[in-house]
């Protein structure tokens, strides 16, 4: 289920650790980067690759917030609402995002373009309020800047 290239990448990870199981989280990342999410089939495949039961893989995927066990929209908009961001107006960023994306927190827009999530502290407190899209952080936001940012996403 992993491409040839990704399978090679995954197998090379076994050299990093004294036990194969330690490569589980990194290999789940490879799988998610390839498919956009991690299906049950993929979990079983990864389990076989590493030599751990499906139940173990499922336990790991459901424990960590960043592993997606269902397909998300094209852009995953993550808004931090923890203390420092809240003090700097994250409520307004949330409402702006929900309105413009056409999806409330926890939902995907009807056109599949956006999934909106609320996240815990992202380590951007000096640039609060913020949103993250993939690996990119967008800090020092205002409602207006947020609108412009979302409008710019194709």
């Amino acid at each position, binding site marked *: 289920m992993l491409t040839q290239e990704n399978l090679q990448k995954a197998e090379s990870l076994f050299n*990093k650790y*004294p*036990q194969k*199981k*330690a*490569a*589980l*989280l*990194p290999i*789940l*990342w490879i799988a998610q980067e390839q498919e956009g999410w991690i299906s049950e089939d993929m979990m079983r495949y990864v389990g076989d690759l*590493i030599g*751990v039961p499906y139940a*173990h893989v499922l*336990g*790991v995927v459901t*424990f*960590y*917030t*960043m*592993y997606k066990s269902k397909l998300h929209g094209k852009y995953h908009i993550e808004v931090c*609402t*923890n*203390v*420092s961001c*809240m*003090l*700097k107006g994250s409520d307004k960023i949330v409402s702006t995002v929900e309105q413009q994306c056409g999806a409330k927190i926890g939902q995907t827009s009807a056109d599949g373009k956006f999934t909106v999530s609320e*996240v*815990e*502290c*992202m*380590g*951007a*407190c*000096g*640039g*609060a309020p913020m949103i*993250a899209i*993939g*690996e*990119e*952080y967008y800090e020092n936001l205002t409602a207006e800047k947020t609108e412009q940012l979302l409008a710019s996403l194709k």
Partner: protein
Amino acid sequence: MEKFILPDIPNLHQIDVYEQNGGYAALKKSLTMKPGEVIEEVKKSSLRGRGGACFPTGLKWSFMPKGNDKPKYLAVNGDESEPGTFKDRQIFEFNPHLMIEGTIIGCYAMGITAAYIYIRGEYGKWIGMVDKALADAYAKGYIGENILGSGFSTNIYTHKGAGAYICGEESALMNSLEGDRGYPRVKPPFPAQKGLWGMPTTINNVETMANVPLIINKGAEWYSKIGAPKHPGPILVGISGHVNTPGVYEVPTGVPLLTLINEYAGGVPNGKKIKAVIPGGSSTMVLRGENLEGVCMDADSLKTAGSSVGTAGLIVMDEDTDLVKVLARIAHFYHHESCGQCTPCREGTGWLEKMLHRFEHYEARMEDVDLLVDVANHIEGNTICALGDAAAWPVQSFVRRFRDEFEKRVKQEETIAA
């Protein structure tokens, strides 16, 4: 004060620039010392961990067995997820080689087989930066086989987390690294006896490692004189919330909180008064604004003031802040992040969140004010790890120090809309 951890040198993340500015000299010096001498130097410096617990680093290193009959591991804790904390991220971006150099020195001192820099998954971009710096360090022979002809070999890897605050807890970090859910372990055994894959392990924070080259280069005696006597050294203070210039500021330990807020972070916007501050990340106890005189950013001063240094994540709240809403959000965080192993934490954080939700909506009962503290008291000390304590302390301190704010949210006889 001169800045050592985040100096104003452009492109310091590039290995050539790092070397031109004295980089990797500490590693070379360490390799001429005996491993035990390196540990002694770190001990003498009185360096204390920068990850939240403030544990003496040299002492922690000395717990590792001296022999090489079994593999030994080092994990560098880059899981930085404590609300209000954003300092290790700066090291990844602006001075990764300092952390790497400190890590190699630690590996040499403790005879480490392999070191893993565990970085939170959300910092994907920063993991890339550290990977680049590691590759450059390998290429120059600073890591790998027979480092600089010393006969000492080790490997250093990054390891990406996947979204779990609890993985910043050292034993949960180990379980996560091993490929499991991030469940903390019962202690004892402690990591130095039985850690990663059952082998002796030390876990140190990113910023802690970044202090090591400085100690080796300038000497423990010099280092121990910086800042507060029992908690010396440069420290990265992250200032956020209601301040004009939020950000990470490198200062010696022991700077007064009011100086940090008013001189470094530009003071509170619109001339408003400080109602409350959280000094060291959301797990540390809140302090009343009018009680900040003389309180300094160091372990002893904050302990005397009724709080702690934590990760030096200073959050400032002005006079218009709804403190009940702030505490409710903090309670939600701990409930969300509880790993679920211990009943007091798993259930208790849930009850705290539910009760605080009532307070937020002016639906609380009068007995809830004391009940909040009662539940918190029953979590504290009764859990496998410190997340339970971290969930309890904000509740205890907010309610005790701002009781009137909570009493105001009790449901009145005639329903008053919020």
